[in-house]
């Protein structure tokens, strides 16, 4: 199958920041993203879990975004402005996609 080089950006961020992040991604020219739920985790600020939680305060989501390599810098710039002061992780990896016209 014909595939095309792309970048897969995975941003783990607090749930309360989700809409701010996706707005920033959209402004940075991103045409699509997928949001995954996160059950729990651990990091510098300690361990947490969603079980039994009512407040959105302690909870994260994972936003996955596949983009053309040339758009990466814009995306990271936009994302960084949002995550800068917040806890969370941004990672980028290489991938190949089918149907490149979609990205």
């Amino acid at each position, binding site marked *: 199958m014909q595939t095309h080089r792309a970048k897969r950006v995975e941003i783990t961020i*607090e749930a*309360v*920041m989700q809409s*701010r992040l996706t707005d920033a991604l959209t402004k940075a020219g991103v045409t699509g993203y997928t949001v995954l739920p996160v059950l729990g985790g651990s990091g510098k*600020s*300690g*361990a947490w*879990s*969603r*079980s*039994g*939680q*009512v*407040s*959105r*305060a*302690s909870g994260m989501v994972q936003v996955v975004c596949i983009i053309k390599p040339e758009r990466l810098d814009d995306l990271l710039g936009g994302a960084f402005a949002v995550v800068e*002061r*917040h*806890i969370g992780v941004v990672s980028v990896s290489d991938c190949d996609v089918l149907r490149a016209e979609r990205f």
Partner: protein
Amino acid sequence: MEQLLSLAAENLISPIILCFVLGVAAALARSDLSIPEAVAKGLSIYLLFAIGFKGGVSVAAHGIDATLGLALLAGVVLSAVLPLIAFALLRVMTQMNRLDAAAVAAHYGSISIVTFVAATSVLESRGVAYEGFMVAVAAAMEAPAILSALWLVAKGGGADGNKGMDSALLREIMLNGSIVLLVGSFVIGWATGEDGLAEISSFIVSPFKGVLCLFLLDMGLVAGRGLREGSKILRPAVLAFGVLMPLIGSAIGLGFAMALGLSSGGIALMMVLSASASYIAVPAAMRVALPEANPSLYLTLSLGVTFPFNLTLGIPLYVAVSQAVTGG
């Protein structure tokens, strides 16, 4: 005093409190007992809907007078002012930095709706009437405290670049799910009145206390997990604040409530609202506006210290005081 103690003891062996205790104990013992997030949210939606609706029906039944407006105003003022007191107290009593102190203070100006619900259920089982509009006062007290806290931070200045309040955040706070549901169901209850209640009372009235039990079990589990993770943070001075602040808050609330001429039950509820600390809306707002403030500090204090204090000792105390001052 004796009456107070017996009231406290009676309060303590209620299923509601014991469910909370069970949750805390299970979490501290590291049991894997847990309530799914979706179920916990479902229970909280039920409680908000039911308490709002019943409040509205009660207003429809008893009519509305000038006190309603004044009580709402009092709620807004209390919510805005209590954080200033809490902040000053924290800075004096503990070595907490400005940012953490402001974040904690915001929680104490705002309210805990479950504490309110637990208090209404104590009043009802003792046959004490209260103003139905107090649930609207509760809604009015959710947000102003956040603005006060952000003002405290802004005033402290700081090159640390706290952007604080923006319009998106303001909208999020004012239209946060629990406020909208509480106010919305209050209005629906008001509009449909006793007829509306009759249609759905076997859903929102009869099973209410049982649902509250399960919700408190869940809160106990969450509080216990928080205590396990966050107990190291609770230095004695911080802990003392978590017990002292509700007492101060309730005293101020008592003053406002008496000035308004509320009934004995209404006074007790105003004390409860002033004494309680938010654990749903404010923590979420703090994560957005003051991300550098330490969340385990304010969550552990609010849910792990002040909530259990109010639930077990605070509520019977506030009820006893409210009855004493009204000669009830």
